[in-house]
């Protein structure tokens, strides 16, 4: 177990280095902004001495490395600035909007994995047969669809033409008024069940279908392609060849021996795919007016709201780093070889 501990410590240190790097990049970005941060802070009609005063207050007159340390202190202390638009601390806004995005990203991820991973396994085990070519084509086509466009197409078809699903939003307005969901986790599907709100649950479920589908289109193809290639690698291993030589039935080989070993790389696939879902959220949310981080960021872009934009990039990177860390550690736990 000594080597496992050493691995975990090494991995944590690596993560720390990456986090410092992220903060350095965002610090750099927030300082090279084309306009003067101090001038932005005091507003449009400020006088020169006001800007000078703001520069002192914001610490912009200090040397760059001191500025960076101040920036780090505020970052760790959760003082991420105030949104110019909402006039609330950015961190509060983010905590408010993040669960909506996470819920959507997870829903998209579930759809993508349920379709992509089995198709990938089938394609790999029927390599170079018709079904393999078909699923590869499917994989390529799905990663080529602009998510914001497929979102609009889904709206046209399921909302406008068929009238089956709601056009946008997270909840119907009458449900939100009559049966509002009490906030526990911020995930509507979870909270409505926890609080026994069985009017809101089906409504929230109907609302999440279209955005989750739009989001899943890209991740579906990605997980299909990645599962296919890892599965092909596994099927090429010597122990599979040996198993075949011993006359063990093909299905036992594929689903007992091969899949078990393909699950570990598939975890990595899931991590990468989730990263993409999180990115896709930024475009899909805007189309569906989904009250999450994506829509929040889009409004900030339109309002030239600097602190929000920079903070969102930090939080997005933070989520990806944490997910990768968790996945890596799970992998070590599952696969004794990685510990070495």
């Amino acid at each position: 177990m000594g080597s496992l501990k050493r691995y975990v410590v090494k991995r944590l240190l690596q993560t720390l280095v990456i986090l410092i790097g992220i903060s350095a990049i965002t610090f750099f970005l927030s300082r090279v902004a084309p306009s003067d941060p101090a001038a932005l802070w005091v507003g449009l009609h400020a006088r020169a001495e006001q800007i000078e005063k703001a520069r002192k207050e914001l610490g912009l007159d200090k040397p760059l490395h001191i500025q960076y340390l101040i920036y780090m202190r505020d970052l760790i202390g959760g003082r991420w600035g105030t949104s110019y638009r909402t006039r609330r601390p950015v961190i509060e806004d983010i905590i408010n909007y993040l669960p909506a995005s996470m819920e959507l990203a997870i829903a998209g991820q579930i759809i993508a994995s349920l379709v992509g991973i089995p198709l990938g396994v089938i394609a790999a085990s029927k390599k170079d047969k018709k079904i393999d070519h078909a699923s590869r084509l499917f994989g390529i086509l799905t990663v080529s669809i602009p998510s914001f466009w497929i979102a609009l197409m889904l709206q046209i078809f399921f909302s406008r033409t068929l009238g089956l699903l709601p056009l946008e939003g997270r909840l119907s307005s009458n449900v939100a008024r009559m049966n509002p969901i009490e906030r526990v986790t911020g995930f509507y599907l979870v909270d409505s069940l926890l609080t026994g709100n069985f009017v809101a649950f089906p409504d929230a479920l109907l609302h999440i279908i279209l955005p989750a589908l739009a989001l899943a289109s890209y991740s579906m193809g990605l997980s299909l392609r990645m599962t296919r290639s890892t599965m092909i690698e596994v099927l090429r291993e010597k122990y599979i060849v040996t198993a075949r030589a011993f006359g063990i039935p093909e299905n036992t080989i594929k689903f007992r021996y091969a899949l078990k070993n393909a699950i570990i790389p598939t975890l990595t696939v899931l991590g990468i795919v989730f990263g993409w879902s999180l990115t896709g959220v930024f475009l899909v949310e805007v189309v569906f007016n989904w009250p999450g981080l994506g829509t929040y960021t889009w409004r900030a872009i339109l309002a030239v709201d600097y602190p929000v934009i920079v903070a969102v990039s930090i939080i997005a990177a933070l989520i990806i780093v944490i997910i990768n860390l968790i996945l890596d550690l799970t992998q070590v736990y599952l696969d004794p070889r990685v510990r070495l």
Partner: protein
Amino acid sequence: MTTLFKGSGEKEARFREIRLIMYQITRNPLTLTSLIILGAVVFMAIFAPWISPYPVYGYNLEEKYEPPSLEHPFGTDYLGRDILSRVMFGARLSLLAGVAIVVISVAIGWPLGVIAGYRGGIIEDVIMRITDMFLAFPSLVLALVIAFLLGPSLINSMIAISVTWWPWYTRLARADTASLKQRAFVEASRAVGLSDLGIMFRHILPNTVAPIIVQATMDLGTAILAEAGLSFLGLGAQAPEPEWGLMISGGRSVILSAWWYATFPGIFIFITAAAFNLLGDGLREALDPRLRRIRGA
């Protein structure tokens, strides 16, 4: 030092290799289809001023939001502009953006990867840790921030996407270089006194071309998607430019009444990106001898 090994025999072998690759590409119906589609899109982009039925910025307020008809096969937009003509001109912007993004990313990432893989040690560590930091960000989010800070425009969004993409090429080139370094021809070049720089750029760089080309071809599709995404959010091309993503953004608000406005530009983004991805996939198979042998060619 290439003269040391190059004879007429090698030239012939190289020629045969190229013929084999061409054969592989044309034999695969999907790859062939993708080439035809890309040919058509490139043709459309180059000849847009001559083949588009209407001028790109010409508006006619009496014909706004006309549904698709014989006169306007893709309908018209809120200023009565012909969407087909604008889609044709849009091909110019999207192809240009895609190529520029990939070229900039390759130009930064590839040499850095070769240097990291060849030199190893501290130089490698520093370069690779920097790429790790960039790759920790979801690339569209980082691109969004950079495009925002630079100020919204087509060129700035291209720069922003490139800044987030080069690390992928660094990783790719580093891995290949590290294995090439062990090969006999590198050893031989060193033995005859070629400098490190000479070895890197004359022997290693050319040998990492194939995987870079495959990756770059696929990335052209993704680059077009990313560019359209930023334009859709208002951080890329600005009105009245006929950019596909921007047109979809314009069609979004009238999606229930004028479905054609967002639909047609999106179809073109989709088929162009799909064609690049298919071509990249076909190229990978044609260029990778391991995959080739398995397919029994």
